[in-house]
Each structure stands twice: as C-alpha cells, then as structure tokens.
C-alpha cells in the first residue's frame, strides 16, 4: 500500500469564500460603496421591488444593479428601463453567487461612483444563503403566495438576512397568509431582522424600506 502522511486542515469549506468576502467588504467601505445582496425564491417580485426602490432613491443617490441569473437578460432589461446602470451576470448553471463572482461583477459594472449597488442574487432560498457575497447586508424578499411558513423551511436564509420584505400584500385576502406567524417565525431564526410588508405593484410600504436603506447607505459612507 502506498505510504501516506496526514495533514490536518479543519477548515470550513466556506472559509476561503468568507475571507474573500471580508476583503471585498473592506474595499467597498474604503470606496464608500454600499453593496446590498437581495435573495428570494423565483417569482417573489425582486425585480419589481428593485424598480420601485430605484424610482424612490435615484434622485438622491447613484444606484447600480447586478442581476444574477442562470441564463437570460430579461431582468437586466427591466432594470435598465429605470435608467440605473445594470450588468447581467450568468452563473452558468450554478445556483448562487460567491464573493469571487461578485467581485468580477463589480469590476464589469465599473461603478466607482455608485453609492448603492444592488445584487439581485439567483432566485433560490437555499444555496445563496450559504455563500457570503461580500455585501454589506443581505435581505430576503418573501411573497404572500409562498406562505408564512417559509422561514421555518429555509431557516438559514432568514438567519443571514438583516431585513425581510414581505411582498404582494395587496393579494393577502386571497391567501391564508398569517403575518403575525410569519413575523414570529422570522424572529425565531433572527430576532434582529427588520420586517417590511410591501406591495411592489401598488407601491404600498416601499417608503419604509427605502428609508431603512437610505440610513444604511448614509451610515456606511461615514
């Protein structure tokens, strides 16, 4: 039998990515760029929500968007219509973005003068939560038709997010969505999480989230 020696590594598979993410965050702090990582299931209304947010904030700050999808540029076109700078990233079949891909995206976007860069992660409640992208904060969007029990089924997603947007509240009367239960479940996983019920379609509640984000960007640039 081949003689071997053993080297102990004892390192999380994510350690390397975590270090890269930390480095990226440090660079963004120096440049005064706030990177927001937005995660959710497919169809929760990420792109519509971003469009609303950009409408509210683009007069007061320079916003750029990175759209990550497995394929297509449908979302990038929608965002481009708002006038914001946008780049479409293709993950080539991978279900998430990591810090290395985020860095490449930022370089491609060439957004040195941006105050706020929004990363629309791949629509998926599982894998994106495990990979730190280097963003200052992560948020999740959960839509009413998905049900109030999602925080129980995908706990890690809600654990890593600083804020949760509950979208499509305009259709709440047609679904058995219990807002109190949803809040309770989110806080069970993350007591600090801020919760913003909105309707990206009607615009209801978007102000409150925009105010949160405005404060976040201001504090980051200090």
């Amino acid at each position: 039998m081949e003689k071997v020696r053993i080297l102990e590594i004892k390192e999380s598979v994510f350690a390397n990515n975590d270090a890269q993410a930390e480095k990226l965050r440090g660079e963004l702090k120096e440049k005064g760029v706030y990177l927001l990582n937005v995660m959710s299931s497919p169809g929760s209304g990420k792109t519509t929500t971003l469009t609303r947010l950009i409408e509210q904030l683009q007069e007061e700050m320079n916003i750029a968007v990175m759209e990550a999808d497995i394929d297509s540029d449908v979302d990038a076109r929608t965002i481009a219509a708002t006038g914001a700078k946008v780049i479409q990233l293709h993950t080539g079949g991978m279900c998430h973005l990591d810090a290395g891909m985020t860095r490449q995206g930022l370089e491609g976007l060439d957004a040195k003068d941006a105050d706020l860069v929004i990363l629309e992660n791949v629509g998926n409640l599982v894998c994106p939560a495990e990979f730190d992208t280097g963003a200052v904060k992560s948020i999740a969007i959960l839509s009413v038709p998905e049900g109030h029990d999602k925080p129980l089924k995908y706990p890690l997603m809600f654990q890593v997010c600083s804020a949760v947007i509950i979208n499509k509240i305009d259709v709440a009367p047609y679904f058995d969505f219990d807002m109190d239960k949803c809040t309770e479940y989110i806080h069970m996983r993350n007591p600090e999480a801020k919760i913003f019920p909105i309707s990206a379609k009607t615009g209801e509640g978007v102000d409150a989230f925009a105010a949160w984000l405005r404060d976040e960007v201001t504090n980051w640039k200090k």
Partner: protein
Amino acid sequence: MHELGIVFHIMDSLESVAKENSLSAISSVTVEVGEVSTVIPDYLTDCWAWAIKKKELLQQCELVIETIHAVTHCDGCGKDYDTVAHGRICPNCGSEKTWLITGNEINIKEITVPEES
C-alpha cells in the same frame, strides 16, 4: 448545482494548502458533511469525480465523506434531540424554540499526501 459549487471551493482550498506545503499530489481528502447541511453526499462524489480530472494535483485524490450527526437543542426544556428524526419541534416538550447545535457543517477535515521516498 449546489454540490458543484462546494466542490470548486474544496478544490480551491486544497490548491492553496498544496502551495503552502509544496505538495505535488494529494491522495485523499476527508470532508465532514452535516446531516442537514443540504449537501447530498452522492452528488458531491459525482461532482468531485468529474471536476478533479482537470487538475493535475487532484487527479488521484479520493473524496472521503464523514457524516456529522445533526443534534438540536430545545430552549423550552433544555434537552438535546435528534434533528433528522424530530425536525424543529421538540419531541420532549413540544416547544418550537429550538436551534441546531451540529449538523450544518461542511468542513475539510484532513488530507493525505504520498510519503516522499
């Protein structure tokens, strides 16, 4: 695919370890996978077999998977219980105020390298 991303990260880590220790080949890598880590060991092995063909350092490298048992702690009654069998509701007191102690890990535990002759 989730497992493929994990495999790429393991390969990156091993390449840096090889560089630091001036290794030209790695015989095996032991990865600890938590029972509820969302990684499926069979998929991980398949992705591994495909991905290592492109890396000289890892061409002969066997992937050894060790499972870490998932255990949840209940804040309601203070007891620990088996996560896979009972999920998030405590089987002892029925509380939902529970959290995972172990079982979510994906760690590179150790590697073996050919002994220099």
